[in-house]
């Protein structure tokens, strides 16, 4: 069976940058995996993700999605078939919650009744009562509720691949923990492939079935959370794991 996502020697450079934003990266991801990409800002994790839905084009290398070279696909329909959630959520302020969620179905010219049923189903799925929230505007929602809507919007046409770019980055830590748990539960029942970018080490190891660690455009280590923690690669990954342990020790002091 074809891999869900495959990168072969992919490189991307931005003009005037001192190193490649993404530097000769290769990996394969299977359908249904939950992959987290961990790294500090500027490490290339978001660039890597944006090459999947072709918001960026690689300078060299090939990206294959379910066996098809993505550069041979038409970018606009490709993006409609991939769910995309951004950190700033990016809800359309002039549309209601229902209008936001119905956007991709309307781009795909779904029938009205089918779209409406789907909107209700999705709102319930992300824990918002359809009758209460469908007709509200984004400005009338809390940050956590907005990101639930962002998630529902990305799931609208049942995409096989979901890209999530620090989706909980701007959300308070209590709501964040709850959203993390719900997202994991959601993923479990769906069989979709999730690619989740974060700079938070705990979030990365909690969420990912496998974790990708990036620094300065390079993919340093890619494996199950336990493997990385037990056998961290020399250098950056090791210091990253050590810093997480130090943080843990800090909390132990208060016990």
């Amino acid at each position, binding site marked *: 069976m074809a891999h869900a996502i495959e990168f072969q020697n992919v490189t991307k450079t931005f003009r005037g940058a001192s190193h490649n934003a993404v530097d000769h990266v290769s990996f394969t991801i299977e359908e249904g995996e939950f992959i987290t990409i961990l790294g500090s800002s500027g490490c290339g994790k978001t660039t890597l993700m944006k090459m999947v839905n072709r918001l960026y084009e690689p300078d060299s290398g090939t990206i294959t999605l379910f066996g098809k070279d993505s550069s041979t696909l038409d970018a606009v329909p490709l*993006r409609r078939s991939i769910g995309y959630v951004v950190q700033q*959520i990016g809800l359309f302020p002039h549309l209601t919650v229902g209008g936001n969620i119905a956007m*991709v179905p309307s781009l795909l010219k779904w029938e009205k009744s089918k779209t409406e049923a789907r909107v209700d189903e999705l709102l319930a799925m992300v824990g918002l009562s359809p009758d209460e929230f469908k007709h509200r505007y984004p400005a009338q929602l809390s940050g956590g509720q907005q990101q639930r809507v962002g998630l529902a919007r990305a799931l609208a046409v049942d995409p096989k691949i979901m890209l999530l770019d620090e989706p909980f980055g701007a959300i308070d830590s209590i709501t964040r923990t709850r959203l993390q748990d719900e997202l994991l539960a959601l993923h479990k029942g769906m069989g979709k492939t999730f690619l989740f970018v974060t700079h938070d080490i705990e979030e990365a190891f909690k969420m990912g079935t496998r974790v990708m660690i990036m620094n300065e455009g390079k993919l340093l280590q890619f494996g199950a959370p336990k493997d990385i923690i037990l056998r961290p690669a020399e250098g950056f990954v090791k210091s990253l794991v050590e810093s997480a342990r130090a943080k843990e020790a800090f909390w132990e002091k208060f016990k």
Partner: protein
Amino acid sequence: MIDYIMKHYDDLIAATLEHLLLVLLALVISLIVAAALTILCSYSKAASNVTLGLLSMVYSIPSLAMFALLIPLTGLGRTTAVTVLVVYNQYLLLRNFLAGLDNVDESIVEAAVGMGMAPMQLLFKIKLPLAKKAIIAGIRIALVATVSIATIAASINAGGLGAILFDGLRTMNYAKIVWGSVLSALLAISIDVLLRLLEKKWEPNTPP
């Protein structure tokens, strides 16, 4: 002063309507041209910079000189007046339209493109509705400017309130000078107030 209005109120009304007609005709044509230019400019940042630069150069030509320049081409009268008004309006309209479209939050645009909107869908479904306020502001500024420049258009026989004003100047008839200027000012102010109300109603990022 009051005598004049009692005797000539029909002239004043006719001139005001003529003025308004000139302004509205210029506005309709301006909007069509500006919409086309905005769509073209939305494809390329470089094209929009060049277009705005050219338009701002043209905008700096004094209106009387512009009327004079066009007379050999389009003659005296309304055609020349409307042409000049449309040309001036392009700078005012386009500058505001493009600024409004550019100011739409980056994350909203990214979400829209990332979910698979084509450029025209992005423009019509997202950017235009969110730039409504800037667009109305551009139309307001252009309208107010048009009311005043249209007064000068009387000097090339385009009629309107300017005709009354220039008549008054020629014959030293103060009543005509005063009524001509008061009415054109009133026209400009009421258009301004009306459109400001509309702008207020369409604050971006709030529920409609």
